[in-house]
């Protein structure tokens, strides 16, 4: 009997592997590392989350975390908040902030938090952004982020108009991602913060539940 060669033809396998790599590379959006684990309740709604959002995460203790999708806007928001709280941020810190996702740090801790490395940040126990009536930092963040995002949207719109290009960017939306076990009072408090800035429509993030 003739001996078969021990090497096998890998071409189809490689074809498949690269096809999959290409597919995943194109469809991938990097998973955001959240400072808290949030178990969202389920609903039958099939509406997708818009791209341009401010996201408030609420953990099961009712602590609030903030993030905004657009990295540029995020930096501008930090600058604005720094101005309000008289904190000067270095370029390195701003860059760190742009790469960061959701955070729940009060302003006086922000500089220290930005100085930490990834592992340190994971260890840092975030207790949410303060939102009491004396020091409503969450409201500050929401307001600053909203204003900056609107300015950017307007600038881009004008630019598109000048260049005679169609303009197709969505307006900023506000999403709330809360843990199912979070007390509703906490969500209500945050909605009050939004209401003060005349924002009334929210996208509540839920899991898709199979219909009966």
């Amino acid at each position, binding site marked *: 009997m003739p001996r078969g060669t021990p*090497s096998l*033809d*890998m*071409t189809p*396998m*490689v074809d498949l*592997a*690269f096809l*999959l*790599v290409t597919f*995943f*590379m194109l*469809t*991938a*959006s*990097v*998973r955001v590392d959240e400072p808290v684990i949030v178990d*969202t*309740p*389920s*609903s*039958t*709604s*099939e*509406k*997708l*989350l818009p791209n341009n959002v401010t996201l408030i995460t*609420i953990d099961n203790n009712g602590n609030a975390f903030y993030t905004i999708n657009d990295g540029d806007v995020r930096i501008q928001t930090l600058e604005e908040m720094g101005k309000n709280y008289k904190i000067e941020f270095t370029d390195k810190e701003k860059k760190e902030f742009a790469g960061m996702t959701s955070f729940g740090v009060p302003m006086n801790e922000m500089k220290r938090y930005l100085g930490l490395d990834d592992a340190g940040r994971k260890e840092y126990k975030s207790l949410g952004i303060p939102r009491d009536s004396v020091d409503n930092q969450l409201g500050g963040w929401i307001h600053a982020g909203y204003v900056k995002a609107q300015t950017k949207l307007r600038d881009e719109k004008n630019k598109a108009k000048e260049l005679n290009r169609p303009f197709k960017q969505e307006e900023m939306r506000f*999403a709330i*991602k*809360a*843990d*199912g*076990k*979070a*007390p*509703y*009072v*906490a*969500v*209500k408090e945050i*909605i009050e913060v939004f*209401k003060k800035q*005349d924002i*009334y*429509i*929210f*996208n*509540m*993030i*839920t*899991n*898709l*539940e199979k219909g*009966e």
Partner: protein
Amino acid sequence: MADVNTDSGGGHGKHDKKRAKKMSTRIDMTPMVDLAFLLLTFFVMTSTFNKAKTLEMLYPADPLENQKPPKIKNALTFILSGDDKVFYYDGEFYVEGNADGKPKTELIETNYSATGIRDVLLKRNVLVTDSIEIFKKQYANNELNDSTLKKHVISVKRNAKALTVLVKTDDEATYKNVIDVMDELNITSVGKKAVVDLIPAELNLLRVKTGKAPIAEAVAPETK
């Protein structure tokens, strides 16, 4: 196959000797495959497949100063409490000995299952659900087009005779409870809905119902 056939003449005895000298054109693909699979694993692990689904909620603006609360017709009020308890009552809230001479409002307990609040809602919202059924049938028979169907559905949900649902929560209700109710409202095509605050009299009634002492200084709501 990865090797290229450079042999033009076909296998005759004469050529055999020449071919033995040739280097193999087969490339070792193992490192490339390694890399491909490494990348594949990386992307499979890090990608989040589907975008999050969201439930859109509209909150009412706070009433202006000395603005009277609107009179709501066909109202149904859900009151959510801790331990996944849910109560409801129809129409307006009447305290004992009210000016209108109506009987005192009682809370009825229900639950989050399909036979609980969904039944309550479906029974009261027949008008809307039935009309939507009719529109859908017409759509299926090509009597209506897509956009007209949508328009009809929206207008029937806004109809003055359609059910209006108020969702109120006490301090112990969880976010999941609220989302569950809002979801049921979507399922039963309730178009007019709002999450609002409890009035003190309702809170007291709720506390009595759940076996807690009523808050002493609660005052009756102003009569309209």
